[in-house]
């Protein structure tokens, strides 16, 4: 009953707005107001069109050329896109990016969901916990990279020092190709927890208490309440957190640039990093732009998939 009314309350304004909007079409345009409308959006419009919208089209144009900035750009059609598939480093980079994304994102979300649900009890010191978990989120990636190069130092680092207490022998985190990616994932998860946790906690706090009480009356255990009451109600927040994490990890540059430079032996070369390397280290603007477009394509696919899934799964949306 409670959800029914709240869903109605959410739907009603949009319904009336739609009706209003339809009615508005018949109202003749007040050009005096319209003039002000255009003036007021003009500053934001100019910057967004000039530095985001047009550059996207420009980037596609550049991706069809061979251009080192020094000589004239030469049109080569889709050669740059073909090159990606024959370039061993590019394919390794793509695989690395998938490895990085599909381990760090689920791991980050599961842990932050656990933390958020722990914080959603009657817990003392909520504000303190929140502050501590949020510190890594607001710190710059560059500083975090530097700190973790030290923390992960195989000989003197804090992490190996801590593991030694449990009798674990030193791990060559950043020097061994097999360990470098887990190290980068570890730092990524460490950094993402605070933000994800806060979004999920806010959603959990909005779950009506009555629902849990009703479920408890019907004999539901805490476990059932979590999986059958809370989780379905916070799916929009889970989707939001998944999307932001996916997009962030596909673009990741700062962390690998400062922690590993894509190494050792290309083990942590990610799309965002390889793109920078091609465009700004080797001045292959065209090839760099093509890689950027592949990245863009992945993000569009993810956005589309989540949009479809959202219609199916997310509570309260039809």
């Amino acid at each position, binding site marked *: 009953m409670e959800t029914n009314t709240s869903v109605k309350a959410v739907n009603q304004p949009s319904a009336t707005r739609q009706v209003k909007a339809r009615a508005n079409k018949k109202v003749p345009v007040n050009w005096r107001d319209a003039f002000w409308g255009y003036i007021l959006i003009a500053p934001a*419009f100019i*910057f967004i069109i000039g530095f985001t*919208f047009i*550059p996207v089209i420009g980037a596609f144009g550049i991706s069809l050329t061979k251009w080192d900035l020094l000589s004239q750009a030469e049109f080569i059609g889709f050669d740059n896109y073909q090159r990606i598939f024959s370039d061993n480093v590019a394919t390794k980079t793509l695989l690395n990016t998938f490895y990085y994304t599909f381990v760090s994102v689920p791991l980050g979300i599961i842990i932050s969901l656990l*933390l958020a649900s722990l914080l959603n009890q009657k*817990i003392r010191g909520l504000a303190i916990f929140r502050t501590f978990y949020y510190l890594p989120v607001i710190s710059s990636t560059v500083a975090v990279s530097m700190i973790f190069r030290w923390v992960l130092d195989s000989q003197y680092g804090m992490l190996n020092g801590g593991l030694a207490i449990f009798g674990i022998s030193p791990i060559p985190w950043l020097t061994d190709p097999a360990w470098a990616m887990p190290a980068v994932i570890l730092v990524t998860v460490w950094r993402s927890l*605070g933000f994800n946790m806060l979004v999920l906690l806010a959603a959990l706090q909005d779950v009506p208490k009555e629902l849990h009480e009703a479920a408890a009356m019907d004999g539901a255990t805490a476990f059932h309440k979590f999986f059958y009451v809370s989780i379905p109600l916070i799916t929009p927040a889970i989707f*939001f957190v998944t999307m932001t994490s996916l997009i962030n990890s596909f673009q990741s540059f700062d962390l690998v640039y400062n922690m590993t430079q894509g190494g050792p032996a290309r083990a942590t070369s990610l799309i965002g990093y390889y793109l920078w390397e091609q465009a700004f280290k080797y001045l292959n603007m065209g090839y760099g732009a093509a890689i950027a477009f592949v990245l863009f394509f992945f993000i569009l696919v993810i956005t589309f998939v989540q949009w479809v899934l959202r219609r199916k799964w997310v509570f309260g949306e039809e």
Partner: protein
Amino acid sequence: MLNKTASLDTYNRNRLLIKFLSYFVLTAGAALMVMPFLWSVATSFKNAKDVFTTSPFQIAFPPDFSAYNEMLERVDFVRYATNTFIVAGLITLGQLFTCSLSGYAFAKIRFPGRDAIFLIFLSTLMVPAAVTLIPNFIIMRSFQLLDTLTALVLPFLGSAYGTFLMRQYYLTFPDELTDAAKLDGCNPFTFYLRILLPNSKPILATLGLLTFQAFWNDFQWPLIVINSESNRTLQVGLSYLRNEHYINWPLLMAASVLTTLPIIVLFLLAQKQLVQSVKLSGIK
């Protein structure tokens, strides 16, 4: 009867156990969040010789400031900080201005093509920064703005996200307010200045903090655009300290601490707004 009290006992004992475990996990997690920072602070107060021999969290008394002194001698940290402050500050002010104006227009003013233009704004949210990196670099190059602070500010003066946030906020303002102002002979701009802005302080504070923090920490764009040392931002300057064969850990940690400290202080002072901003972004 006996059974009932027994089950009540186990119930209470389970609750207590859950509470205890919750606090344990949360505290352990919080410790893992903070320890790298504490360790970097402790390291920054050692000198390059002691760092490998003294115990990790031990700080000499009085603290050894040699790492800080050496860093300030070696790089123009004050210059980097000033540059960063100017860039992040100008972007923040610019975005607050452009986004509140456009957010207001999209929420409260009717004009042909409004919804289509708003959709264009929103569609740019999907564009990853990596895609605009190369063309924007070329734009700056053709304006001969490479290696200037202007190039760091200019591309970010408008924001689709900020516009969206402001629009959502202004949608909650009653239409009667706009209508009454119109009757009083206010044009939309004077209405914006006299009535809207003074009533948007909380959302402006939230958007401002978010923007300032993001551009204080911004790294890739300044790395690409800036060449000369005098125009470096803190993040770029910090990153260059890494490019040495022999890593001086206390010095590197001192620089990391100083780069992060202003943002952490700002966060502690304005926690409420930042928490609020997370909730707002979650609604999206």
